[in-house]
């Protein structure tokens, strides 16, 4: 069986890939998105080695100082360097985005494929659970979990991941059902391929592109979600920096120190914009409908 199908797969793959890169390169918005994402990932990864101040070191002699050569983004209400807190805050944001989406994908895709593959009662049961999860608006769900589990970045990521899961269940269920009607899946079943092999060899590779697109766009939503929770005081706990909690404090000093509010918000905006542009670009490049 594998001898039958694989040469074809190998033959079409490079062609597909080159078309993908060609489309991506021709899309300036997607490139800008990719560049923004890369920039923030680099900043977050290099935080320990960058020549910046300690993000939690207070300096009572330099409270709420406007941006200057010594503090490019100014200082906050207890004299901490805003730039340095921004850099370390990027870590919390990206970590929250990636980890919560990973939770959503790792739980959602198997459930969705199972529902789409098996149909019947399994499908009905999984669909009801999905609807119940969808019925709790994410922020309310996240607030409830944070309230009962206690506020922390980990619990925020769990809450965001759980509330993003239904999107992936629905998407992979629908995609699996489409793939299941394809001739090659029918013939693979006809020659007696085991379900697990069928899923890993035919279904997962075929449903991968739309899931990748959705995951990229969901990272954008998840980053805003983490910032929102931290802004409410239910995410990253002080003094560890996060963009959301920086904004929470900054809103009390708007008149005296507007820079405290300006930069963290701009950071969230740019990184989220990056993931949104990249996701839209990936969707266009991976869309099989137009060539």
């Amino acid at each position, binding site marked *: 069986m594998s001898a039958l199908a694989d040469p074809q797969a190998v033959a079409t793959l490079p062609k597909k890939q080159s078309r993908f890169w060609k489309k991506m390169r021709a899309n300036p918005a997607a490139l800008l998105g990719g560049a923004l994402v890369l920039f923030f990932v680099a900043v977050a990864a290099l935080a320990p080695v960058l020549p910046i101040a300690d993000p939690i070191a207070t300096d009572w002699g330099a409270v709420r100082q406007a941006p200057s050569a010594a503090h490019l983004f100014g200082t906050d209400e207890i004299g901490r360097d805003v730039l340095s807190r921004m850099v370390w805050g990027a870590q919390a944001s990206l970590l929250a985005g990636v980890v919560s989406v990973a939770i959503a994908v790792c739980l959602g895709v198997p459930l969705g494929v199972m529902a789409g593959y098996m149909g019947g009662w399994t499908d009905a049961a999984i669909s*009801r*659970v999905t*609807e*119940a999860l*969808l*019925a*709790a*608006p*994410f*922020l*309310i*769900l996240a*607030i*409830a979990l*944070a*309230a*009962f*589990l206690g506020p922390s970045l980990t619990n925020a990521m769990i809450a965001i991941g759980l509330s993003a899961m239904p999107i992936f269940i629905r998407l992979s269920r629908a995609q699996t059902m489409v793939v299941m009607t394809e001739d090659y899946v029918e013939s693979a079943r006809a020659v007696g391929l085991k379900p697990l092999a069928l899923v890993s060899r035919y279904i997962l590779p075929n449903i991968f592109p739309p899931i990748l697109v959705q995951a990229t766009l969901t990272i*954008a939503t998840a980053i*805003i979600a983490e*910032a*929102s929770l931290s*802004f*409410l*005081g*239910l995410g990253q706990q002080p003094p560890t920096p996060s963009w959301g909690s920086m*904004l929470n404090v*900054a*809103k009390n000093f*708007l*008149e005296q120190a*507007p820079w405290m*509010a*300006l930069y*963290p*918000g701009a950071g*969230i*905006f740019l990184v*989220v*914009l990056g993931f*949104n*542009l990249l996701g*839209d670009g990936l969707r266009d490049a991976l869309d099989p409908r137009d060539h």
Partner: protein
Amino acid sequence: MLAFIGRRILIAIPTIILISIFVFTLQHLLPGDPILVLAGEERDPEVLEFLREKYRLNDPIPIQYLAWVGNALQGDLGISFRTNQPVLELIGEKLPVTLQLATMALIIAMVIGIPAGVLSAYKKGTWIDWVANVVALSGLSVPNFWLGIMMILLVSVKLGWLPASGYQPFAEDPLQSIKTMLMPAFVLGTAIAATLMRHTRSAMLSVLKSDYIRTARAKGLAEHVVLIKHALRNALVPIVTVTTLIFGELLAGAVLTEQIFTIPGFGKLVVDAVFNRDYAVVQGIVLCTGVAFIFMNLLADVAYRVLNPRMGDK
């Protein structure tokens, strides 16, 4: 049609049961004796014993759940230990505030989002389309609590045009009420406008390709008649299906917006409840929003059927 509604309600029931189980389970996630949670700061052994009896905490968990659901069905969602009010009453008190905010935001969103979507679909590929898309994508990417903070900085602190916070009940002074709510509603509305614009655009694009639009144009109808009467009316049908999505965005957005502008609504209630460990209120709110969400979903499904009678009996 009635059979369709009946079937949709039947499907909704297991979902509501699942939500109630989830909300009930929340209180068991807490470490320690749940009665200490329900009682708040009350430590009188007699009161604790009374509550233990009332919530049947000496019974097995399934019985406890049934008792809890029984109370909830009768409108008893417990009592907020902070204000000593029944939870349902508290929610009812705060809801009008949030409804006003949400309604104003939705109006702003529709006024911006739908025309922008129509225009950008009609002028597809031109600079107008490009600008509309960039603005919409920025609207989706900007955290609305940051937009709120920046608006306060500009409109209230620098220009002094509108108050930065506060709330005036609509019944007391409608004009002042709308004025104080304008900035929060705008902040909340812009995020929804972006979602609406994107959905209107893609719905319009597919409608504009259809045969009846070509026919309408061939008949010599004026372009604005074709666009509004024929295209937009049909494009609005699929937009109904994103109602629940928008409802969720409104609700989540309201929580943050009320926090920034210190508006005493539903969202402020839930956040305050979390920090005061007023667990009955948190549970009540999750349950109510879940049920409201399912109801909205049902309504959207029915509206979609009414607007789109060609849909088969599926």
